[in-house]
């Protein structure tokens, strides 16, 4: 296949970005959406073509690098290459990314219509898609980092799209800075890895490090720092980067706030694609994690599990529908993460890996669907708050149905997509780590509960009070509903894809796993959650308040997101600003600058104080003269002989 096709996949969106960014506003303001969408469509088709070509060619999937351009050379072996890495997960990801992006593009045609910065919006979307594609296709660790950062900034741009809204600006900043903080770990991790393995290229990296007895692997394991090997540090640091991007506890605080962006953006970036980049990164380096640094993989598992349950609990208490979805996203990514964490390398033990990727795929479908559906609702209601909604099932039937499908999918009710992927994850966890398995089980119950809490609150509960807004009286027209329908299809049916065949740790296809006895418990828990939600929220009643009151302290803590934000605020404002920044500025102004000024002032002061020397009295001059002469004479006769 010609290289140009690989290149075109990310570059078509880039072209969209440049075109719309530079000229959109002036020349084709209203057409820009269509231009962007069209480019995206082509890109999607190419991606599907490429992926199809790849998956259909053989049954064992090698890592190919069809495109490679040396971008920046550091040393003989270490260089940043821009390339395309072709392997199952990257192929899967480009399809997911282009597909969701295309859906969002289409959806936005309706959702963002009439916005003042419509072309800008599309150019940012294109930029994001480009960056995300670059990220998933990266053939070089550093290339990943580059696009990782670009993804971050496009996320920033899109969260801050409504730039005159202070909360949006703050959210954008927060998202960027928190992920940046995590990226610092990623960066140092890269440095460590590059230094210990003497390459940045994924293929070489994985090959050298995982082959037993390779020079690099042993040297990397040998050099230790604070009791851990260099490689352990490297992968752990890289995982920090991934955790930040994927909003894992405790670096998750930016994700709920990121919902300040337009809803389609949340669907694309903060649900389906960008936030799973962390998972993708760990999956990308999975052989190294698994073979060289299993300890770090344990951490991955625990962080994922904690995030999953933590987010699920918070989600149960929130009222902003987008935030609920955001916490649910975090929770689901937790699933993916711990699935990787509990997985091993090779054969059956690699199930977690497959499951994780599988869940990533299905999650993309139903979570995008949920967001887009929520977008339609918000578009209709002009509010994000659950309290303003209720009884909307009649007003927006299509949305209702698709939303329900998505909720069932995420709750893991068969035969929807989420069921399959989640089952695999639970199975993997069961095989890998029992405690995590139980956590996951509880979480899946919670998931069903809060999703249906959301569902019932929007579409059932109290009857809808209309007329406090004007404008849209419809669901937004076919252009917004079309993506919903397509995604609903995905959410419903993508579970039947035999993922294990394509995506596995060692290239040997995994058989599909389906154990009925094993599925009963999670499905039962899911149903329990649904019924609980139904009981509490289907009709307007005071049961929720009572329940909340009975759980008083815990509820409050969960409602306040366990005060994590406050802790961060304390650390940044009080410690970093007041204890580091302010003293640094003070030190500069007073000590460093003060010393210079002191030198100047001293000179002036000395100059002023010795003015008496020049008294104007000639006899005094003569005395100085005489003493000068005598002094010199004594000096040179007696002292410096």
């Amino acid at each position, binding site marked *: 296949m010609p290289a140009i096709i690989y290149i075109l996949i990310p570059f078509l969106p880039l072209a969209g970005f440049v075109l719309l960014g530079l000229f959109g506003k002036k020349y084709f303001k209203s057409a820009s959406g269509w231009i962007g969408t069209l480019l995206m469509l082509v890109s999607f088709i190419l991606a599907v073509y490429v992926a199809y070509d790849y998956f259909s060619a053989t049954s064992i999937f090698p890592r190919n690098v069809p495109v490679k351009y040396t971008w920046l050379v550091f040393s003989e072996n270490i260089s940043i290459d821009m390339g395309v890495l072709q392997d199952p997960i990257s192929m899967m990801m480009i399809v997911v990314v282009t597909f969701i992006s295309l859906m969002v593009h289409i959806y936005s045609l309706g959702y963002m219509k009439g916005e003042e910065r419509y072309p800008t919006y599309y150019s940012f979307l294109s930029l994001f898609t480009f960056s995300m594609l670059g990220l998933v296709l990266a053939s070089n660790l550093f290339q990943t980092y580059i696009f990782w950062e670009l993804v971050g900034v496009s996320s920033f741009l899109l969260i801050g799209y409504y730039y005159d809204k202070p909360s949006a600006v703050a959210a954008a900043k927060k998202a960027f800075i928190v992920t940046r903080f995590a990226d610092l770990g990623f960066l140092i991790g890269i440095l460590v890895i590059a230094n210990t393995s003497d390459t940045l290229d994924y293929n070489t990296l994985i090959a050298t490090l995982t082959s037993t007895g390779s020079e690099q692997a042993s040297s990397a394991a040998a050099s230790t720092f604070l009791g851990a090997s260099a490689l352990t540090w490297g992968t752990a640091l890289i995982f920090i980067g991934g955790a930040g991007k994927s909003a894992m506890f405790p670096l998750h605080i930016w994700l709920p706030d990121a919902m300040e962006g337009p809803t389609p953006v949340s669907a694309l970036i903060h649900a389906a694609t960008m936030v799973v980049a962390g998972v993708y990164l760990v999956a990308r380096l999975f052989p190294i994690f698994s073979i060289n640094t299993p300890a770090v993989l344990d951490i991955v598992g625990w962080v994922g599990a904690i995030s999953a349950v933590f987010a699920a609990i918070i989600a149960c208490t929130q009222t902003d529908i987008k935030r609920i979805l955001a916490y649910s996203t975090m929770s689901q990514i937790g699933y993916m993460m711990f699935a990787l964490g509990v997985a091993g390398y090779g054969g059956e033990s690699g199930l977690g890996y497959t499951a994780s990727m599988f869940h990533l795929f299905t999650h993309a479908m139903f979570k995008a669907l949920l967001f887009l559906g929520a977008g339609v609702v918000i578009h209709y209601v002009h509010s994000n708050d659950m309290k303003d909604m209720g009884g909307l099932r009649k007003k927006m039937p299509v949305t209702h149905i698709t939303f329900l499908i998505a909720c069932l999918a995420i709750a893991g009710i068969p035969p929807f997509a989420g069921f399959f992927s989640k089952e695999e994850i639970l199975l993997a966890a069961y095989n890998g780590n029992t405690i995590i398995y139980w956590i996951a089980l509880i979480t899946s119950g919670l998931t069903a509960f809060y999703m249906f809490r959301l569902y019932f609150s929007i579409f059932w509960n109290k009857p809808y009070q209309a007329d406090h807004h004007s404008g849209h009286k419809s669901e937004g027209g076919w252009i917004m509903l079309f993506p919903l329908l397509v995604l609903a299809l995905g959410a419903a049916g993508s579970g039947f894809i035999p993922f294990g065949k394509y995506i596995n740790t060692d290239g040997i296809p995994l058989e599909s796993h389906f154990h009925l006895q094993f599925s009963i418990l999670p499905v039962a828990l899911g149903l329990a959650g649904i019924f609980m939600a139904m009981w509490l929220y289907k009709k307007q009643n005071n049961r929720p308040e009572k329940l909340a009151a009975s759980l008083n302290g815990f509820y409050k803590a969960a409602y306040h997101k366990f005060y994590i934000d406050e802790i961060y605020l304390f650390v940044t404002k009080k410690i970093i600003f007041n204890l580091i920044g302010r003293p640094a500025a003070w030190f500069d102004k007073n000590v460093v600058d003060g010393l210079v000024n002191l030198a100047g002032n001293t000179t002036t002061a000395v100059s002023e104080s010795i003015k008496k020397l020049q008294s104007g009295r000639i*006899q005094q001059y003569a*005395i100085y003269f*005489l*003493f000068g*002469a*005598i002094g010199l*004479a*004594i000096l040179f006769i007696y002292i410096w002989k």
Partner: protein
Amino acid sequence: MNGSDIIFYLLAAMTLVCGLLAVTTRHIFRAAVFLLFSLIGVAGIYFWLQYEFIAAVQIVVYAGGIAVLIIFSIFLTQQAGDKLPKQRIDRKIFGALAAFCGFALVMIQVYGHTFFETEEGEVTVSVFNIGKKMLSITDGGYALPFEIISMLLLAAMIGCIVIALRTKKENS
């Protein structure tokens, strides 16, 4: 101690005492007179050293010229009978200290040093020799300094005239 020695000591005493008085007395006119005597004392020492020509010059130029000039200027600028204002005592002490330090320093060096003497014969210091040397341009003659000093005197004269004769413009 012969007569010559006694004369020397007398001259020395006269020179130093008059000199000291010249710089300490508070009567300005008396100071001038003491200066005159001190200068004459120096001339006496020249005589004693048998440098009569220099002694004569000393008397003519110093006693006859400079001293008179000074006395004139005193008359011009001061009521001769007035006492000079008193100097502050601390300045006097400082001045004396400085002078004494210098004196001590120089004397220590002088007495600590053995001067060489020439082995060559003495030239007779006669007016003829001096005059001849003064005007010769070879053999270490002093024609050039003579010319220089004449230019200096010319310049000094011009300067004096300009500065001292500004009376007419004073009103304008």
